[in-house]
């Protein structure tokens, strides 16, 4: 049946119907570069290289799960969240408008800890040792340079008002303080237990000191220094709190039952209130009972958000994280990530690509125009050159276009900007098989064969060249697909579908059209080709 003209027409109509139906029902899936959106590649952060490959893979799997939950709650349609290789996570969010917010929701570790605030005495006793560790680690030279660079204002002040001598004296003083007591010179008393203040201008310097491995070693046992969440004003100056905490938390965010954003009317600030589960509530009650009068710090991602004094035993397991004047949306996002759970480790973004919706729409519009003009040019050339046969080729080209688009819809392939280019290019190349066949037919006609014979011979002689050339192109397309990423893959898919579709349309469809024509006319003297 497939051999008869009727059978062939049925096959073609069936293919066209399937392609058309799939295109109509599925539609074309647009790539992020066309509809706008964000593509992120993330990896578990491991700056010191302490993870084993297995631990990395485990952490990645956990992070993947948590990101899924977070994105689901965040509310993005059809997000793509997948693992690539053993330790990379790809997140693709279409149509997102606030990329920074989405990035924060994905990336925030959201590691919640409850820690006891320690008395500062033990730390003060250890300060000389810590100072020496800093001097040893960084060298005196670097420290004095830093101190001078950071206090040019004072030096100039001395120059203007105090004369040369005092300036030098002052500079020497700065030098000696910086080189002898780099950390302790910058710590100020706060008046509250277990809390120092650091001038905001010294924040970066002190933070750098605290991150030195030598300093961590010189710390008293089970003690760590953590920053408050944001600077606080006192008079005209801005200060940061630096808390002395037990490094072991007595409880972590795993015991969290729920979290919700809200406003605290009393202090007019944004808060996230949370509720602990039964185990958490019991631990909290026990610890508060033991530590009436002490402070408990609520630590989120190594920043202290609040450190209330325990006035009495606290039952019920409720608490809150204070966000100051932060917008409510930020509190909402924080509540969301707290509910979804903490990431097993911080994540690094290693690749980010975002495209705004306007740019995508622009690419589509321009691709359409270029496509229409390109196709029109091909149609004109084919008909002008091959006349009647050219018209058949153009009809086949119509079938081709339908199959390609339908095929993409069927395979759920994504159309990207380079994909549009590939599509337009493939139309130029799609007529190649027809050109080959028509040239062969012309040769056979020129050699004096009858029209029927010439058409038959033309098709069969052109076949080996068509097959070989299509297969090699298909090979390059497959390699592109294997090796490429994102938009390039889209290009490879379009190209592959195009090659297969052009084989069907140029060989099968055109042949059928020829057969139909020759069948209608019983005697054919000549053919317009």
């Amino acid at each position: 049946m497939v051999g008869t003209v009727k059978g062939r027409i049925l096959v073609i109509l069936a293919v066209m119907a399937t392609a058309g139906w799939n295109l109509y029902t599925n539609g074309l899936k647009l790539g992020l570069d066309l509809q706008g959106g964000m593509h992120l590649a993330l990896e578990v952060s491991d700056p010191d290289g302490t993870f084993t490959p297995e631990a990395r893979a485990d952490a990645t799997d956990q992070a993947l799960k948590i990101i899924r939950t977070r994105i689901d709650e965040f509310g993005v349609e059809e997000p793509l969240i997948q693992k690539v290789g053993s330790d990379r996570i790809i997140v693709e969010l279409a149509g997102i408008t606030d990329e920074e917010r989405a990035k924060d929701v994905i990336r925030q570790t959201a590691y919640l800890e409850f820690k006891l605030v320690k008395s500062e005495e033990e730390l003060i006793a250890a300060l000389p040792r810590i100072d020496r560790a800093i001097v040893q680690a960084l060298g005196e030279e670097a420290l004095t340079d830093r101190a001078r660079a950071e206090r040019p204002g004072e030096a100039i002040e001395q120059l203007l008002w105090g004369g040369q001598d005092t300036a030098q004296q002052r500079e020497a003083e700065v030098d000696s303080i910086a080189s002898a007591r780099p950390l302790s010179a910058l710590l100020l008393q706060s008046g509250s237990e277990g809390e120092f203040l650091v001038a905001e201008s010294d924040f970066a310097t002190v933070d750098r000191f605290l991150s030195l491995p030598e300093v961590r070693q010189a710390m008293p046992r089970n003690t760590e220094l953590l920053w408050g969440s944001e600077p606080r004003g006192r008079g005209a100056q801005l200060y940061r709190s630096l808390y002395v905490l037990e490094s072991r938390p007595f409880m972590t965010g795993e015991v969290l039952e729920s979290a919700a954003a809200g406003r605290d009317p009393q202090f007019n600030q944004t808060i996230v209130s949370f509720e602990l589960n039964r185990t958490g509530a019991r631990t909290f009650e026990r610890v508060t009972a033991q530590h009436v009068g002490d402070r408990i710090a609520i630590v989120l991602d190594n920043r202290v958000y609040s450190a209330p004094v325990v006035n009495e035993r606290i039952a019920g397991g409720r608490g809150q994280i204070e966000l100051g004047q932060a917008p409510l949306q930020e509190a909402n996002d924080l509540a969301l990530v707290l509910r979804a759970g903490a990431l097993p480790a911080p994540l690094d973004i290693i690749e980010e690509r975002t495209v705004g919706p306007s740019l995508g729409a622009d690419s589509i519009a321009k691709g359409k125009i270029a496509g229409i003009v390109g196709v029109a040019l091909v149609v004109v050339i084919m008909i002008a050159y091959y006349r009647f046969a050219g018209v058949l080729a153009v009809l086949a080209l119509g079938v081709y276009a339908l199959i390609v688009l339908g095929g993409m819809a069927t395979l759920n392939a994504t159309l990207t900007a380079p994909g549009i280019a590939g599509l337009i290019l493939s139309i130029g190349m799609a007529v190649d098989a027809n050109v080959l066949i028509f040239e062969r037919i012309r040769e056979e006609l020129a050699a004096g064969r009858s029209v029927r014979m010439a058409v038959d011979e033309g098709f069969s002689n052109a076949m080996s060249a068509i097959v070989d050339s299509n297969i090699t192109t298909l090979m390059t397309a497959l390699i592109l697909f294997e090796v490429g990423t994102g938009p390039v893959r889209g290009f490879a898919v379009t190209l592959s579908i195009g090659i297969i579709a052009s084989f069907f349309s140029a060989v099968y469809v055109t042949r059928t059209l020829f057969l139909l024509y020759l069948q209608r006319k019983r005697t054919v003297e000549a053919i317009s080709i």
Partner: protein
Amino acid sequence: MRLFANANFDFLGHRRAAYAASGAAIALSIIAALFWQFNKGSWLNYGVDFTGGTIVQVEFRQETSVGELRETLGAVVPGAEITRFGAENEYLVRASDFAEGGREVGAVIVEALTGRYGADGFTVTRTEAVGPKIGGELQQRALLAILLSFAGILAYLAIRFEWRFGVAAVVAVAHDILVTLGMISAFQMEVLLPTVAAVLTIVGYSINDKIIVFDRARENLKKSGRREDLVTILNRSVNETLPRTVMTSVTTLVTLFALFVLGGEMVRDIALIMFVGILVGTYSSIFVASPALLVITERWKPQQKSGAPARTVRTGAAV
């Protein structure tokens, strides 16, 4: 209408002219590559996909200028490259870093622009930020893709044709790629992932073209047996396929031209690269592939060695 009907050009007789033309093109390519290699340290202008770095495309509400942007961004992102792109008030900021001091450069740029123009004064239409690790990976994969496609094509042709056809085709395609890369290097066009796709498409198209010619040569060789010499057969094969070679080239080039003119900034570069590559590929299908096959046959087929030089002279004399 029929172009090149019964064409009978002596392409192989003029192969020395083709050698000269191709040699000159390749020499120019190499000179350009060396020039940039010594002047800029890299013969290709690798984009963010391969070097890692950040591109931010920004559309401003109000008119601004490159100078003003440089002033705004100079302090926070030293060495940022600022160019106009596409529409009226659209600019491209390129930075060679992905992250600087723990912060993403893209965010730093947006912050600095917000400080100067306000949050409503501009829209970020595109960000491409690639970490150094990804960049290195993509570079490897792109190279792998090109090598794999060469190997695959060679293997396929060796199976379907004789190996000498495969080698000749790969020589001709390598010629096309060299000249195309020469252009990319000479004009320092930015090399991104789609550029690799464009180059591989040229490989695909060009090899396609060679196969058509060689398929005819194979057929003609079979038909004639040993009655005719290789030069005559190759010449006839190139001439017989000439209408197809030109026709397909024309239909492909017009679509690429439409893409180049109307497709917008994002695809203009790859349309141009493919246009040039396919133009060169068409030339090499006619002028390079068959001479390559001839040279390979003469060099490595001992049984034909004695007769070959005489034949060459004869065709040369017939011109």
